[in-house]
């Protein structure tokens, strides 16, 4: 059954991979699905899942550590395992490769495995060589790999195009560009130097064929990023008798919090996110999740945060298993413990206070205002989580006077009498008529043309004080005759102290 994986692109669905039947029918990676359907109308299209593939590859990399201590991912579809000193455990290198083939086949994967003294040579052999090929350290890699295409060097597509235009198709041609062989070392060195200058500005190994070649031959080191398993701290209690009462549940959660604190302490970490899962007798799983403003390792604090989230738990016929996971943890050094043990005497810490506010009021309710680079007053202030680092800011102009409070949105005012200078002498706001006694302004703030429509109008701000002494910040939106609307409106936006 010809099948292809597709990904939506700007020009329509495009094939990312095809199975053997699909490839035989003409589907190729990179082809538009419409073109492939023209070749083979019965081609089945399945949406690809790159993120899921990457997660699977990461799991496979961990699983592949059965053959070596150390493995790395090679996205989208490769794995590198360092089997240095481990092959004899499987009965030699051939037996190890056979074991790899068997294990992947048992999992339902098709795999091509090869062995080489460097990551580059193993990659080249597995992708372009005979399956199961083994290159030992004693072999001459250039002689054995010289017939492979230059694509075996793990190069970018545009570099491959350049090499094809230069007429370099095989690894042997790249190593001995002149074709002179060993008898003319000086000419060879000059040709190599010319090639090096051609790719002088290509720092990335994937864009520099000479660097890749040296990596494959083991002349320069190649750093790789290993995959390391980090098990999530998890504690659980299986209960002999299903729980139906809140007091008992609190007791179990308290025990679990204590266990979790010990587990985290052993790792030198503190929890940022905790998930509590409750398995009911009838198979239902209830989960409660809390997030903390700072890494913590205090069982009392964890207890209190969960206590407010357990009020709506429906125990049904009883809860038989309770599990607590720290799905997000951060390093947290051991601290002096009992100096501030008596929180009821000395109060809570700031992070604990923020946590308790966030759990009850929601994360959006507890924020810190930070300045933002904008002249529009309502955009000049952003709200971010309270304990996040404050972004660096250019200093504000000290001569701009700003009110102490800004209304949520500017409120329209009705101007009853305007002075000849253009500002209102008497206006009505919230049902009260006010006389303007003193005025300063205007301060003109132009619209941000790079993000607003061309019809957005400028604002002229005035600081005013009314007869009773109340001080306000009002503005006129637009000026008469600016061609962006009718008569300008007046708004009140800020309250001065």
């Amino acid at each position, binding site marked *: 059954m010809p099948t292809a994986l597709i990904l939506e692109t700007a020009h329509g669905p495009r094939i990312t991979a095809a199975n053997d039947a699909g490839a035989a029918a003409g589907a190729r990676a990179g082809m538009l699905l419409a073109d492939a359907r023209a070749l083979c109308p019965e081609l089945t299209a399945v949406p690809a899942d790159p993120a899921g593939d990457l997660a699977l590859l990461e799991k496979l990399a961990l699983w592949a550590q059965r053959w070596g201590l150390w493995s790395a991912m090679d996205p989208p579809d490769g794995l590198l395992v360092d089997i240095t000193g481990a092959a004899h455990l499987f009965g030699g290198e051939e037996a190890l490769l056979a074991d790899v083939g068997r294990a992947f086949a048992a999992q339902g994967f098709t795999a091509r495995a090869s062995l080489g003294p460097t990551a580059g040579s193993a990659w080249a052999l597995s992708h372009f060589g005979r399956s199961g090929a083994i290159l030992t350290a004693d072999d001459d890699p250039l002689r054995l790999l010289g017939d492979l295409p230059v694509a075996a060097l793990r190069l970018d597509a545009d570099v491959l195009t350049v090499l094809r235009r230069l007429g370099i198709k095989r690894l042997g041609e790249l190593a001995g560009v002149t074709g002179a062989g060993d008898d003319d070392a000086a000419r060879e060195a000059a040709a190599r130097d010319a090639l090096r200058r051609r790719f002088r500005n290509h720092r990335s190994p994937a864009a520099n064929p000479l660097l890749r070649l040296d990596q494959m031959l083991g002349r320069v080191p190649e750093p790789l990023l290993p995959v390391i398993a980090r098990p999530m701290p998890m504690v659980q209690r299986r209960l002999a008798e299903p729980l139906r009462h809140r007091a008992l549940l609190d007791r179990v959660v308290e025990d679990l919090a204590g266990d979790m604190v010990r587990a985290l302490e052993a790792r030198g970490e503190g929890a940022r996110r905790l998930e509590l899962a409750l398995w009911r007798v009838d198979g239902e799983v209830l989960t409660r999740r809390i997030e903390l403003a700072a890494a913590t390792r205090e069982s009392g604090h964890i207890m209190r945060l969960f206590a407010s989230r357990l009020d709506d738990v429906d125990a049904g016929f009883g809860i038989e298993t309770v599990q607590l996971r720290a799905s997000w943890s951060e390093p947290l050094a051991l601290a002096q413990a009992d100096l501030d043990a008596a929180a009821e005497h*000395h*109060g*809570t*810490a*700031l992070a*604990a*206070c*923020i946590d*308790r*506010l966030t759990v*009850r*009021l929601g994360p*959006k*309710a*507890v*924020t*810190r*205002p*930070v*300045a933002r680079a904008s002249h529009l*007053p309502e955009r*000049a*202030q952003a*709200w971010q989580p*309270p304990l996040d680092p*404050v972004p660096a800011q250019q200093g*504000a102009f000290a001569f*701009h*006077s*700003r*009110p*102490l*409070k*800004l*209304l*949520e949105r500017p409120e329209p005012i009705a101007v009853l009498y305007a002075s000849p200078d253009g500002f209102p002498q008497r206006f009505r*706001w*919230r049902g*009260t008529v006010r006389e303007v*006694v*003193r*005025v*300063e302004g205007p301060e003109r703030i132009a619209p941000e043309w790079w993000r607003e429509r061309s019809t957005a109008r400028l604002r002229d701000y005035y*600081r*005013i*004080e009314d007869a*009773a*002494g*109340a*001080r306000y910040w009002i503005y006129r939106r637009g000026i008469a005759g600016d061609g962006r609307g009718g008569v300008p409106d007046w708004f009140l936006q*800020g*309250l*001065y*102290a």
Partner: protein
Amino acid sequence: MPPMSFRPSPARVLSRSLPEARWRPGLPAQPFHSEIFAPATEASGAGLALALARDALAAAGAAGGEGEDTRQVLWVQDRKAIQRGGRPCLAGFPPAWRHRLIHVAAATPEDALFAIEEGVRCRDLACVIGEIAGNPRALSFTASRRLSLAAERHGVRLWLVRLDAEADLSSARMRWRVGAAPSPPPRWNPAAPGTATWHAELFRARAHAPGEWMLSDDNTALAIRRDPEDDHAATPDPVRLARATFGRSLAARARP
């Protein structure tokens, strides 16, 4: 309303039997729970709360003799207070306080009271400023008593601004009623609004006698504005600086 000028009688100034019977800015011993009643159409309540808080923290810092205070300030508002009076604007704050503000937007007065109490219990906060609109049922005498006790126990000061509220029962140690007052004309542009000025009435306090003041805050310190006439002394007036015109002909004055 004419500005009330207060001049303490010599007897009261000289008498030390009742220490600091009159409130004045900069007193080292300030209560931990104060209430400020203000109209919601002005920022005078928030402004006075901020000024009093800075005054109290400056006095406490001078007494403690520590370095720069970097503790955070918790500003709690319920939804009605945000709707009627707006949110705090960072650019209008005193520069030393701009990076120290944590804002809590509570949906209900109950949530706001919870946030205020949690803030008062937190040892890492410099002070808590709350804004609650109206007279909600949740803010009963019992609730205010809880706040007073928590604030006094943990030593975190609380200023609770009550917008458009009646002065009902409360256990706040100082209760103010404040409204905006005409500001002194600035030195360089007399037609512009001046520094923040309020007419503040202290109508209940434990340690002090009730009284009324004209208070002003120019982002450096809270001060009593004693007399509008003093402003003229501070403002150089070229007309008054001119020499009196004795013995000069009127024609000379009329000449341009």
